Every structure is written in structure tokens, then in C-alpha cells.
């Protein structure tokens, strides 16, 4: 590069225009969306159909087993718990951490909420309290307990400087133990109808199907907010920076500890939201709710493209990851496959998803090196070969 070395101008012009084409991988979830569509197509085609009798007219008609409104609604409901928690887990995973305690936080938040709701329920001591108070109070208890538990995880990670795997492994047992002690291993039911049928289980009758749109709406809301937050918020940017290179973030004066506290608190909050939906939908809670959810949640986040090494992940990806896993669960029922196979299939899907991600990043690297060659060649044409 003779021109550079001979006369170095005081201010070098940038070689390429700054207004460049947008990043090509802006929409990273195309592949996941493809998998969802392919799975959906497969299940609709091979799932077969079902005879349904209309309640009012009494005549029967055939509907697709998968594309049936009832089934899709159930799929959305099942996905919503996991998707919301997976978004929380994605935040943690982007910073390079892990949260194993989400299942237990979910349980503890549900149990606390259930005790409040049971107290104000038709058979409780506080029966007859106004729904205007009861519903927000139950929400605050669920979300508050979740956030508090998450915050404690964060404190352990930041102040005790113990690896998040160990901290959350410990709190996983602790939170569930607390739930056990609080409930004395009994289930809580009889909630005020204002919280269940009036809120989470709000029913929309559509043809012959009963639809429950509230869990779906909450899930979509959380996804949009979290996605926007990751892309636009200062803290979102900091989350990526901490996960991409923690030491560099520290050297740049970022509040690394604060960022970590926030992501663990958010992970707890997401478990609290999921617990709230579960309470309202099923109308009961016991101390073994959410057992083993942590692995499903982390699986959903990883299938959704979050990198356990940190620095990568999206909210929409987490949602799609949860959806894919639930579609497989749903497909196993629809296709009449033995339930025992579900774990094998889901495990295989997780490995496959990570493999696909690896292939994708190799291809990306290839593309970048090819681009570099093009830049270099075009430069060589401008500058004649320097002589020794």
C-alpha cells in the first residue's frame, strides 16, 4: 500500500462509505421460523383429522387434528410458560451466565400467589374482598417473589463471586424447599374467579372451540418488550457487552455488577410471570409445580440461538425455541407416538439446533473471508504493486 505509507494524511478518509448496507443478519431467526413452518406443515399433513360434533347444531364435521383451533390454543398456552421463562434465561445466557433455579422460582412464586389467592378465594378467610384489590395483589406477589428470588441469585453471583451454575444450583434446591415448607406439601385451590375466569382464563368462544387468548397475549407482549429492550435500551447493549467480553466491559467503565444483578432479577421476574399465568389457568398450585422446567427453559433458549459462551441471543429466538419444543411435544400426541419417546426426540432436536448454529457460523465466516478477498483485490487494482 504505497499510497498509505508515502503520504499519511493527518486525517485518513474512511475507505468505504459509512452509510453501508444494513447488517445482513439483521433477522437472525429466519432459520427458526423455517423450522416452525416445516414442523407445522408436517403435523398438519400427517396428523390426520378428527370428527367433531358441533354443540348447538349437533351435526358432525371433520377438522385437521393439528390445525384445530382448540389444539393451536393449547399449543400457545403451553408455549407461553416456557417462552417467557426462556426469554429471561436468554438474558442471563447472553451475559455468559446460567440460571438453573427458574423452575424453583416458578414454583415458589406460584405457591406464594396461590396462598394469597386461596385466602381471598371463596373458601378463604378473606372471601368477598373486591377483585380490584385481589387481582393486582396476586400479580404483585407472583412477580415480586420471582424478582426477589432472581435478585438473590444475582447477589450471590456478583458479591460472593461464585460461578452462576453453583449459585443457582443451590438456590434451585433452597427455593423449592421453601415452597415445600410453606405449603406443607399440600395443594392450594379455590381461587377468586376474578383472577382465573375473569383474567388469565378469559374465554372467547369461536365456533365450537373455547379459546383462551390471555396467556398468548402476555407472551407476545413480553417478547416484544424484551426484544425492543435488548436492541434499544442502554442496559440491553450493556448485556451484550458483558457477555461478549466482561473484562473489556469493566475497562470501559460499564456497571458490570449492576448488569448481572438486573439479568438475574429479570430471569426471576420472567419465572414470576409464568407462575402467574399458570395459577390463573389451572386454578391451583402445589410445591412440585415446575419440576425440571429449568432444563426445558435452557433448551428453548439454546435452540433459539442463545450462545452459552455469551454475547449472543434474541428474545424472538427464545420464543421460537420454546415453540419448536412444544410443537414436538404436541406432535408426539397428535401422531400417536409413544410418550416415552418425547425425551429422546427433544434431546436430539437440541443437539441438532446447536449443530445447525455451528454450521451457520462457519458459513458466515466463509462469507466474511470471501468479502475480505474482494476488498483486497479491488485495492490491488488501484495500487500498483510496490517494489522492494
Amino acid at each position, binding site marked *: 500500500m504505497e499510497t498509505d505509507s508515502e503520504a499519511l494524511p493527518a486525517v485518513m478518509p474512511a475507505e468505504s462509505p459509512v452509510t453501508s448496507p444494513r447488517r445482513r443478519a439483521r433477522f437472525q431467526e429466519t432459520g427458526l421460523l423455517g423450522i416452525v413452518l416445516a414442523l407445522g406443515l408436517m403435523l398438519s399433513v400427517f396428523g390426520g383429522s378428527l370428527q367433531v360434533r358441533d354443540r348447538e347444531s349437533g351435526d358432525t364435521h371433520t377438522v385437521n387434528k393439528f390445525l384445530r383451533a382448540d389444539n393451536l390454543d393449547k399449543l400457545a398456552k403451553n408455549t407461553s410458560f416456557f417462552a417467557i421463562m426462556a426469554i429471561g434465561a436468554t438474558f442471563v445466557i447472553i451475559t455468559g451466565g446460567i440460571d438453573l433455579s427458574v423452575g424453583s422460582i416458578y414454583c415458589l412464586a406460584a405457591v406464594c400467589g396461590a396462598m394469597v389467592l386461596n385466602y381471598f378465594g371463596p373458601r378463604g378467610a378473606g372471601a368477598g374482598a373486591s377483585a380490584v384489590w385481589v387481582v393486582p395483589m396476586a400479580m404483585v406477589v407472583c412477580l415480586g417473589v420471582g424478582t426477589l428470588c432472581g435478585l438473590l441469585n444475582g447477589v450471590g453471583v456478583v458479591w460472593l463471586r461464585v460461578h452462576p451454575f453453583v449459585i443457582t444450583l443451590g438456590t434451585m434446591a433452597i427455593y423449592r424447599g421453601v415452597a415445600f415448607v410453606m405449603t406443607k406439601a399440600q395443594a392450594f385451590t379455590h381461587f377468586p374467579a376474578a383472577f382465573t375466569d375473569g383474567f388469565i382464563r378469559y374465554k372467547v368462544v369461536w365456533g365450537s372451540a373455547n379459546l383462551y387468548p390471555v396467556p398468548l397475549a402476555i407472551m407476545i407482549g413480553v417478547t416484544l418488550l424484551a426484544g425492543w429492550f435488548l436492541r434499544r435500551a442502554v442496559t440491553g447493549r450493556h448485556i451484550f457487552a458483558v457477555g461478549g467480553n466482561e473484562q*473489556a466491559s*469493566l475497562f470501559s467503565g460499564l456497571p458490570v455488577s449492576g448488569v448481572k444483578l438486573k439479568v438475574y432479577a429479570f430471569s426471576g421476574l420472567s419465572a414470576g410471570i409464568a407462575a402467574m399465568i399458570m395459577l390463573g389457568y389451572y386454578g391451583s398450585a402445589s410445591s412440585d409445580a415446575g419440576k425440571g422446567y429449568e432444563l426445558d427453559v435452557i433448551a428453548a433458549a439454546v435452540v433459539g440461538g442463545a450462545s452459552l459462551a455469551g454475547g449472543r441471543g434474541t428474545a424472538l429466538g427464545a420464543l421460537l425455541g420454546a415453540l419448536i419444543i412444544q410443537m414436538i411435544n404436541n406432535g408426539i400426541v397428535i401422531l400417536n407416538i409413544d410418550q416415552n419417546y418425547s425425551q429422546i426426540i427433544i434431546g436430539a432436536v437440541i443437539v441438532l439446533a446447536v449443530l445447525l448454529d455451528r454450521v451457520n457460523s462457519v458459513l458466515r465466516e466463509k462469507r466474511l473471508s470471501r468479502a475480505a478477498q474482494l476488498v483486497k483485490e479491488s485495492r490491488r487494482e488501484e495500487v500498483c504493486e510496490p517494489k522492494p
Partner: protein
Amino acid sequence: MSQSLFKVTPAITFRSIEKRFPGVVALHGVSFEVNPGSCHALMGENGAGKSTLGKILAGIYRPDAGSIELAGVGQRFRSPLEARLAGVAIVHQELALCPNLTVAENLCLSALPHRGPVVDREELLVQAQRFLGEVGGDCDPQEELGTLSTGQTQLVQIAAALATGARILVMDEPTSSLSLAEAQRLADLIERLRRRGTTILYVSHRLEEIFRSCDTVTVLRDGGHVATMPLAQTDADGLMRMMIGRSLAKYFPAHAACAPGPERLRVEGLSSPGKFRDVSFRICAGEVLGVAGLVGSGRSEVALGIFGLDPAVTGSVFLDQRPVLIRNPAEAMALGLGLVGEDRKRQGLVPEMSCGENVTLASLHCPGGRGFWGRLVHCPVCPRRTECLRIWDFIRLGSERQWVAKFFRRLGVRAASPEVPAVTLSGGNQQKLILARCLARNCRVLILDEPTRGVDVGAKAEIHRLIDELASAGHAILMISSELPEVLNLSTRVLVMRNGRVAGVLERPDATPEAVMQLMAGRSGASRTTPQTAPMSPICN
């Protein structure tokens, strides 16, 4: 393997080697031959592709095109193990052996002596002693490798390579973190190895070493082959010209001297147990205070201490003549103090984030220092909102793009676009991103630790020019560097450190290479030092 046997057949033949990485074409069409038993220098500025070529020979990378022949036989290494079996070994500080095993275990790792399934400890020690003896190392074979100094580790690596029967050694920047004495010992060892008939490919950009140890030289520039010739046919200036396409005289630009302004940073009696003691200095606006010293003399530790990254530090720091307490980097940056760390990959760059995001990483704060509720009310009516990248807690992406474009222009960052991941940029441009990060944060006092490490010569000159410009613009700069010419040419004053203490401060006219070397090494002389209380440990033999 006597030398005469291979006189006609070259030990190594590279034929049109090509290698591409994201963002760079590392090598294209490199062909040359290496004679058996020679110490062949592979030279070039950083980024010229010399390390890549060494790693291809050692089987760490696979070439995209081209072939390698060893003693006339074509080879396609798919792993470092295959190269090792063919007699090629690489000595590289980043590719050390297993730091958690002992020296002896590392040396015999490929063929542990055993009785049945049990490792034969005595035989292991005997063998290890023999291998160590061959390279003249006398460190304890039962010590864990991770506890040794860099120089000792390197000797163990060479011993391990020879133990597996390596006839070709690739040495990748072997002296980059050695002390002067350790480097001298390495040169002696290379001489011994050559006499035994080992072929050495010596990757370096340090002229003195190459003239001391090597007989032939190949120069690479910009991924291409420039020349291969006996060293006797050229001199330092000639090599330099081949490496960078211009002569040494232009290597360092003339320093633009300007009158220092008011005092910006003063440090008094800064100490940290075991790292440095009683360090005091002051820097005025418009000054570049160069810090010289051997590796391990506490230079970088002082920088970290000022920047709030060393909780054990005592002493006082004054910014603009006001005493300040800096407990963490966030507080330091809020006071207008910026640090460009010595290890760009670990302390600077967030590799997966885009170039632009890397630049603005430290500038997303509220310049008014308001908290959440304060911002909620104040942001829409803030008089400083044009110099701020956020509104409430959200980034203003449009303003961010403008800022990034501004700093790209100002520092001459070359990237395909501000949106590409920072890892795809060359070393020099990555360094500019981190410098831009400090400037975007409006830092008036800059601590630059090895600002041109791992940066090619062209970019180096640009960074030197930038440092000069920043000083002229009224920044106060503390520049730590291992490259003496860099310190001498850019600094207004030179502070020399030895064994964690300030050995002396030299004004520009007094700062000759001899004077600085003498202070660096102590009274006994410049070339050989055996520091008694040095934090670094002396080499094996």
C-alpha cells in the same frame, strides 16, 4: 540427520500457499524454500502473514490452496499432531503445554513411561532430566508448568518438541515477553540447535534478534512473498524497506513539540504490595509521558492501579490538581480518565459486537450523571441532549450512527462498514476503535498501554501520529511501551521503571537509548541483568 545429506533437497518447500480469514486475506501465493539446518527468519510487519505461515507449517491452520513439502515429500497436515509426527513442532507462548501438569509429565506426554497401567515415576524423572539437559534447562521437573516463567516454559516447550523427534522448529515471536537475559539465553540455545542440524523457522519482526540468530531471511508483506535471501546480503534498512516499502527514517514521524499546559494528572506515592512502590509523577496537558521498563517492572500495574482496578493500591491521585478517589473504572471514566489496555483482545474489544457499538460502548451514560427518575423528568428538556446518545434509558440509534461516522473519520478507521463485527478488523483498526471509545467518552487524560502492540507498521505510524495530535489538542497522555524507539520518539519526558519503582525521569534531550537502558537495567549495565528482588523469576540455567 547430518547436514550434508540434505544439501540439495530443501528441508521445507512452500508452494503458492493461500489462506483467508474473515476480514483478511492472510496469505496469497507464498512460495519459498528453507535449507536444512538453517535458522530461517520469517519477517514482516504485524499482519503480514508470517505467524499464519508458521501455523500452517505446524498443522494448526490448513491452507486454502498450495502445498508444503518436507525434504521433497509433499505433506498435508490435518492437525498439529500429524505435523508433529512428520517432525515439525511449534514453540508459541499461547500454545503452551498443559499448565496443570508437571514439567516432567509435559515432556513425556506423548509416550509416558509406564509399568502396566501405572506411570513409572522414576523413569519419568530420568527421561525428563535428559530432555531438559539437551536444551540446557535446569528447572525442577516435578514443578507444575503453570508456575514457571515464560522463558522457562519456552525452554520446556522446545525440550518437549525435541523429545518427540522434531527436526523442524517453528518459533513464533519467541522473545515477545522475555527479559533481555532470557532472550540472550534463547539465542544461545538456537545456535546449539542449529549445530545439531535442527531447521528453525524464526518468526519475528525484531531486527536485532534476526541478525543475531538467523542466516537466511524471507520477507512477507501484506500476505505476499517479497524476497528470500541470505542475511549477509542485506542490512537493517534494506529489510525494513522490504517489510514496509519505505525506509527507517520515516518509521517514526517527527514529534510535534508544544508547550505543556496546566497539570492534568498527578500521582503521589502510589504503592501496591508486591507490584510497585512509591510511584510519583505528573503529566500536563499537551504532554506525552513515556513509561519504559522491562517486562515485569510494574508498568502496566501502575496503570491499572490509577484506573481503579487494583483494590490494594495506596497513595494519592490528583486530576486537575484536585484529589480524587478512584475505586473502579466507571469512576475513572466519569472523571475523564481513559485506559487503552495492553491486551486488546481481552481488555479492549468486544469481538462479536459491531465496530460502531464498540466505539460508543463507554458513551451511553447520562453526561449529567442523573439517576433513573432524574432522567425521566429531565431528558426531554436537557440542554445537553445533543451531546448525549440516550434518551431516558434508550439509545438514540441515529445519533449513535453519526457519532460513529465522526470518529471513524477522525481516526481513519478502515472497515467495510461500522456494522461488521469488530473481530473482522485488522489489529491497527481494532486499536483505533478502542482509542475512539476513550475519545468518544471525552477522556482528557489517556493511559495507553502498549498502544501499538500487534499492529502493522503502517497503522503504527498512524497511531503515533494520532497520539501526537491528541497531545497537541491538549490531552495528557501516559504511554507505556516496550518499544524503546516508540517511547523515545513520542514522549515529552520518559519515566523509567525498574522492579516496581521509578528508576528515573528523563527530559526529552537527556532521553538517549543508552541512558534509558541503563536506568531500566540498573547500574550494572544495560545488557545483562539479574534483578534480586524482581517479580520475574530468572531463567532456568
